[in-house]
Structure formats: C-alpha cells, structure tokens
C-alpha cells in the first residue's frame, strides 16, 4: 500500500486550520468491511503535518512527536468520504500541537490531539531535487496551495 492518506485539501489557513478529505474504498488493500481506525488517525496526522509545515512556508520536514490522546467512537466503511478538520492549538519553532476530528456525514470516526515536530536540519536527509519535485507535484495534486516550496 502507498501511504498518502489524504485525497484533497479543501481549505488551508496557514498555521491555523486545515480541512481535507479521504475516501474509503475497496480499491485499497485492507481486509474486512471497516477501515482500520489507526489509518483514520494517520489521515488526521498527515493533515496536521501539512498544517504545521504551512506555518513556516513548508521549509522543514515534520514528523509525529506524540499522540496525546485519540478516540475512535465509530468506524468508516468503503464508499464513505471522511472529512478531516485539524486546528493548530499551539505553535513554536520546534513544533505544533494539533487537534483534529474525522467525520463521516457528521458522525465522528476519530478525534485526536497530537504533537508534530520539525526535524532539525542535522537529522533530516540531505536535500534531493527529485524528492523536492516529487513533493511539489504531490502537494499540487492534493490541492495544497503553494506559494513557494
């Protein structure tokens, strides 16, 4: 399986709030009738990662620092469109604290509070123009508004 768990961004208020969608389909290789909730969490984390990086012009790489808490009161199923809504509650140069909720037609399938941290330059991989281009193409495909990347 690939690992881009967002399909499109609907709204990006830099460093403040991001809304995106993720469709659940049999076309993805999960077993059973329900989408694994751990991947609903990942969709929220990825949305939060873009939100956190948007606050500083997408200059740093971000990784997950910590999940403070998360709950999954219901499941998503094939054919559902998950709406992801993530807000940055606190931001610092080192990282961003986010709160997000995932819903299907208004029903909550996941909620999480998590910390996204920016990878210090010495831990990030060396800059690679192919990777940078891939990233730009991906962000354009997801309708993430780019100023410069």
């Amino acid at each position, binding site marked *: 399986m690939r690992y881009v768990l967002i399909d499109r961004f609907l709204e990006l208020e830099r460093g403040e709030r991001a809304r995106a969608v993720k469709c659940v389909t049999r076309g993805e290789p999960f077993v059973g009738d329900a989408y694994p909730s*751990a991947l609903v969490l990942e969709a929220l984390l990825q949305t939060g990662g873009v939100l956190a990086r948007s606050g500083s012009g997408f200059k740093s790489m971000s*990784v997950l620092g910590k999940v403070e808490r998360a*709950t999954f009161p219901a499941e998503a199923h094939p054919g559902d469109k998950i709406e992801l809504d993530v807000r940055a509650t606190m931001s610092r140069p080192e990282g961003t604290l986010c709160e997000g909720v995932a819903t299907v037609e208004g029903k909550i399938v996941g909620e999480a509070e998590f910390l996204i941290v920016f990878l210090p330059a010495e831990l990030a991989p060396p800059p690679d123009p192919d990777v940078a281009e891939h990233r730009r193409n991906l962000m354009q495909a997801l309708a993430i508004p780019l100023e410069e990347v």
Partner: protein
Amino acid sequence: MAYVFVDKILECEPGRRVVAVKALAFNEEFFRDHFPGMPVLPGAMVLEGFVQAARHCLAACEGAHDRWVLHAVENMRFNRFATPGEVVHLEADLDGEEEGAVWFKGRAKVEGRGVCRLRFAVRKQDDGRD
C-alpha cells in the same frame, strides 16, 4: 494478503500478554511515501500492529467470534525511528478494562531498544454497523 502488520506471534498468554513481530522490508510500498529518501516506520502502523496483536491475544481466550477494533490511544510516544532491515517486537500487556474497553500497555522495540510506548484500548464491535 495485504495490510497485515504482524508477521509472527512469539508469545501469547490469552487475555494477558502478547509479543508479536513485524519485520521491515525496504520493498514495502508505504516506505516510498514515508518518507521519500528517508524510510521510517509510521507510528500509525505501529499502532495497527498492536491492535492486530491484541486481537490475537483476546481471540485466544474469548473464542473466535468477537471483532475487536481500536477504541482509544493515550500518550503514544516515540524514542527513535524503526527502519528497513530491522525487526520490530511489539509487546502488549493487559492494563485494565472499563466499560467494554480493554486497555493494554504497549512497547515497541528493536533489539531491546525502545521505538515507541503507548496505552491503547480495543472494544468489541458488533457488525450491525455503527
């Protein structure tokens, strides 16, 4: 079969403890995206590995008919990245039950060194849809 995050069960005390293993291969597709040029095991996949291990632990004592799903996570923290070429051990120990949710304390390690720690809960999901 795709989307299985547990390769082998090393230890299982039904309803109490389970130790599972997931080996990491560069060839796995998700590494291409996470991240390009720096393949590391995503935290959410560690979590799913724990859920699958917990299912195994509970199915061993409850009988085969309950479907357990992820209910909640608390304080999931990461010490270091796990990377292709490593074998991740997922250890989960029962840590209480409340209102139908069964809690575990989980520790993911590579060669004894901590990768991730968390508390997580699973609940029985009846399939009359939510």
